[in-house]
């Protein structure tokens, strides 16, 4: 099997400060990888390098494209990368407002992604939008409302619908459940679990919530000061952490 994503020696510096460095891993189709670590450890920097939002200073990110197999997304042209981010990739932001168009209706937010990949038939687009709103448990009669009229949890579900409607193969998520109530989080996690399985998605999820990775991620990467300090099967890293920092991280939460 070819990995969907092959990351080698990614490094990003902000002047003299390390964003992240020496990061390498493979991600296979259907795999979900969690990235945990304290604030400032480089999680978002890494995710943004992988998703093409930041240009790393070193390393390569090979993505298994549908047409040409493995391609380095860092060196490919900007239009090619933009096309990938509209079709094969999805990016779920921590703050729904960063991933939604707040002055466009819920239906428009979902439909827009389809139009960006050349869907033209109004009825089909509206039909897909309704289908996806339903999947993320937003009722059809809210389709013409703007996201500003939605609760935080609903906005986050709308962002997920907007991202997944194009049938991506790889989803990047930066703290997708951050800032939500625990009960709302549980519902969102359950939704994400179902979608990941049904669509055989690969995903990379950044979070500092160990319960979230326990539920969603097959594999875990622990970061500190821009470095990856421990990796492994999620339950193994959480139940038998090897590194001092990981032990501290795991023992600092009550129960996961």
């Amino acid at each position: 099997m070819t990995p969907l994503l092959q990351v080698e020696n990614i490094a990003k510096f902000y002047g003299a400060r390390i964003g992240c460095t020496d990061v390498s891993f493979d991600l296979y189709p259907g795999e979900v990888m969690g990235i945990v670590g304290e604030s400032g450890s480089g999680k978002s920097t890494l995710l943004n390098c992988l998703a093409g939002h930041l240009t790393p200073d070193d390393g390569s990110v090979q993505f298994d494209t549908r047409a040409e197999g493995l391609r380095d997304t860092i060196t490919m042209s900007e239009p090619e990368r933009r096309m990938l981010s509209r079709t094969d990739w999805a990016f779920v932001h921590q703050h729904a407002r960063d991933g939604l168009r707040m002055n466009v209706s819920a239906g428009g937010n979902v439909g827009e992604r389809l139009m960006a990949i050349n869907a033209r038939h109004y009825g089909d687009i509206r039909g897909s939008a309704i289908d996806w709103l339903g999947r993320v448990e937003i009722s059809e009669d809210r389709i013409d409302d703007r996201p500003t009229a939605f609760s935080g949890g609903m906005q986050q579900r709308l962002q997920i619908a907007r991202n997944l409607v194009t049938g991506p193969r790889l989803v990047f998520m930066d703290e997708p459940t951050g800032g939500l109530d625990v009960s709302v989080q549980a519902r969102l996690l359950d939704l994400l679990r179902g979608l990941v399985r049904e669509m055989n998605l690969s995903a990379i999820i950044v979070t500092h919530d160990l319960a979230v990775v326990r539920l969603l991620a097959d594999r875990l990467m622990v970061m500190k000061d821009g470095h990856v300090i421990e990796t492994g099967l999620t339950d193994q890293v959480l139940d038998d952490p090897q590194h001092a920092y990981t032990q501290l991280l795991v023992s600092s939460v009550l129960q996961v």
Partner: protein
Amino acid sequence: MISIENVSKSFVLHNQGATEIPVMQNASLTVAVGECVALVGASGAGKSTLMRMIYGNYLTVTGRILVGDVDVAAAAPREIIHLRRHTLGYVSQFLRVVPRVSTLDVVAEPLLATGTPREDANIIAQSLLARLNIPERLWSLSPTTFSGGEQQRVNIARGFAYPYPALLLDEPTASLDPANCATVLAMISEAKLRGAAIIGIFHDNAAREEICDRQLDVTKYTLGLAA
């Protein structure tokens, strides 16, 4: 089916003065197809630890743990995930519940994950829940609020839904009444008959005698370690 060779384990507590807790040294064990082997030894002897190492839940640094043809001690995470999905089942002592997922789905999940159609998976899950006396009105609810014994039976139903060639059972009968205990023992012997290699931990002597072909006292791998 399962072959453990010279496995050692110690925990290093880095944040408590780097205390090293040696748990076992050079443990070896083989379990053949259709065989059930009991792990015995006092509380804290390392029974659950060895079982978790076989499942890949605890890291194994020295020795080999072969389940089928996969060496758990050396396998990549995705190989272990594949092994757990298709070959190696584990009934842990406590059910780890996913919020909002119904009991029926919890039990059907291992079948769905291996490609069983939804309808067939539901039928199997329902018959297991019925057999383990989980009242039908509870099937659509999340097991989060169930009693300890009910959760344990849901856990067992889940562990037996898919016919794994190898099974690890950590105290599967611990919080069960005699009738349910007998059902679980019957399920274990059926699994043996279809060829499953089983490793079990049973506090109940009678249950262990009834179902296990042999026993391994893990204390013999821990003697002299704890100073």
